[in-house]
């Protein structure tokens, strides 16, 4: 077993790709700037040296075409990793993702699968403005046929990506641009536990359900809340499809209070689904309504303070948790 060492989220992702590509020669990476440039956020840096330009395929700026090409590749024996540089560009490729990749197995009666991975990144944090800062996971979550993972930690970046690269169905993997430089201990041997949420901090007073970057905000908030005598349980969903209802319901059954924290916009977002589930399945245990602390229902503005103000912050998680505890 390899000794755990510190890695960045970015490096863990790269290592996962490298290990997977070494193990499975049918994996190719296809996308804009994935080869020579090494990825807009450096995730694929250097891979072209190891695997060559036939497996690290730099494409023209043609999102629909490149995702469609990945669909065709996946149907004919390859396991493509299509990279969408920003999740914000998904509107250009949504037909290929939602009408093609997601539906092919079903429409064709189970004959053909589409074992492709769509890697992309989203979220705020770099003053990228309205078209480079979105969190669009709800569109994917609402599309039957697509799996969806959103890792928050270094180890999850690795193990979830490795696992995703063994799945028989199209999988969307959304990284967070503000996490690439996040450091942590990488444990490559950790089981992927795909589809299972993780209790990252046990607590008895309230449950904070979240994923991706907001996990870190929630853990930070939980630390401060503890100083205040409020004991928050923090759950990282890790994958949104499959979604682990059991773990979150069990937690809320215990704490009686739930705060769902997401970066995506509130209305009809992921937080709505989580709140709906919790009130369905933990109804009898709820002391208070499930509270949604989510992105504002607005496009993301460029000015840094406005940008930060458009999504939840540790401070707002704290104040909301206090309100929820009637403190």
């Amino acid at each position, binding site marked *: 077993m390899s000794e755990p060492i510190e890695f960045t989220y970015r490096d863990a992702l790269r290592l996962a790709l490298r290990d997977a590509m070494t193990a499975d020669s*049918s994996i*190719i990476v*296809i996308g804009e700037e994935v080869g020579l440039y090494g990825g807009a956020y450096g995730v694929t840096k250097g891979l072209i040296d190891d695997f060559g330009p*036939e497996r690290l*395929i730099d*494409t*023209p700026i*043609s999102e*629909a*075409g*490149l*995702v*469609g*090409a*990945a*669909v*065709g*590749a*996946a*149907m*004919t*024996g*390859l396991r*493509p990793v299509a990279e969408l540089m920003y999740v914000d560009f998904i509107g250009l490729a949504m*037909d*290929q993702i939602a*009408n*093609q990749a997601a539906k*092919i*197995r*079903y*429409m*064709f*009666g*189970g*004959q*053909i*699968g589409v074992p492709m991975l769509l890697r992309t990144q989203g979220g705020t944090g770099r003053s990228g403005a309205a078209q480079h800062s979105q969190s669009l996971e709800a569109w994917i979550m609402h599309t*039957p*046929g697509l*799996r969806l993972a959103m890792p928050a930690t270094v180890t999850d970046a690795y193990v979830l990506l490795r696992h995703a690269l063994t*799945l*028989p*169905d199209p999988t969307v993997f959304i990284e967070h641009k503000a996490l690439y430089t996040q450091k942590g201990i990488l444990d490559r041997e950790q089981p992927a536990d795909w*589809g299972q949420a993780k209790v990252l901090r046990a607590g008895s007073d309230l449950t904070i359900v979240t994923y991706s970057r907001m996990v870190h905000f929630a853990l930070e908030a939980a630390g401060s809340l503890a100083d205040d005598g409020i004991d928050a349980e923090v759950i990282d969903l890790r994958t949104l499809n*499959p979604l682990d209802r059991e773990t979150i319901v069990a937690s809320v059954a215990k704490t009686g209070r739930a705060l769902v924290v997401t970066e995506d916009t509130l209305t009809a977002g992921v937080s709505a689904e989580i709140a709906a589930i919790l009130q*369905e*399945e933990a*109804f009898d245990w709820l002391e208070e309504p499930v509270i949604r602390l989510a992105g504002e229902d607005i496009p993301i503005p460029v000015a840094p303070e406005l940008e930060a103000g458009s999504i939840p912050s540790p401070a707002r998680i704290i104040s909301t948790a206090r309100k929820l505890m009637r403190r």
Partner: protein
Amino acid sequence: MNDAPRNSRSTEYYRQLLRVRTFEERVGELFVRGGTAGSMLHLSIGEEAAAVGVTAHMGDGDSFTTHHRGHGIFLARGADPNRMMAEIAGAESGYCAGKGGSMHIADRELGHLGANAIVGGGIPAVIGAGLSARHFKSNAVSVAFFGDGAAQQGVLYESMNMAALWSLPCLFVCINNQYGMGTKIDRSAARTEFEDRATAFGLRGARADGGDVEKVAEVAGELIEAARAGAAGFLVVDCYRFHGHARMDKSPYRDDAEETEGRKTDPLALQRRRLIEDALLSESQCDEIAESVTEEMDAAVDFAIKGRQPAQDALFQDVYAPGQPAPEPVDQRIAKVLAE
């Protein structure tokens, strides 16, 4: 088929044209009898030469995608008419277990990567198939079939650009039946020489008369050979959509004179005439072929009619691969929530 001597090749073309024509006629009749799943049925009558002439050059390992008007292409490529007709009827015994229907037929065995109800939606998949051919060092070609209307979808240009850039074994076949629904081609493009668009992207562009299956086959053969060698191609096949856009459309937007004229470019009539004139077949031999095709297609209708609708529990199958977590039925979830 294209390696056969002229005699049997020309006869085979004729038989295939007839198979497509007759199949489509039967689909139309099945619709009238209420036997199809829905009315979104697009018949390729008049366009048979594109299907037959191009697929004549395809074999094991090759792949293709089609548009919504794809019955004929797949049939010519070797489909079982029974399972096709059953699929059109939405029956369990169909190619896609009654889940796809007329617009979503696919077949792993024969490299049919799928018909598509999104105009242009199936085009970029051939780029991926081309990458696979390159990766696995096979000699396979991948062909995208689509209509003249689809030539205004951006993804075609993105795909052609990649095919040319990466020297992929891909062929783009634009079946120009003059119409996209009610829109005649000159109302959807200022310049309709689409092959020039392709050459501007670096592909081999060509055009063939869809009234003549042998001509289509000849041009397609050259393009497919070149494509296998890495020179991606684009072929426009000119023809005429004999009937309405879908089975219900009476084409009020065009007049009888035009239709009469358009239907003169009938690849079937020409091929029959040619076989007889060149003394390759007699009238009665032609009729015999027609009879056997009629039998085959009548049998397909019978097969489809006998097919059962899929069972309700099929609803939740094949959203994901077997063994993977499947969607939980809504009623089951509600029952759990309200259980007590």
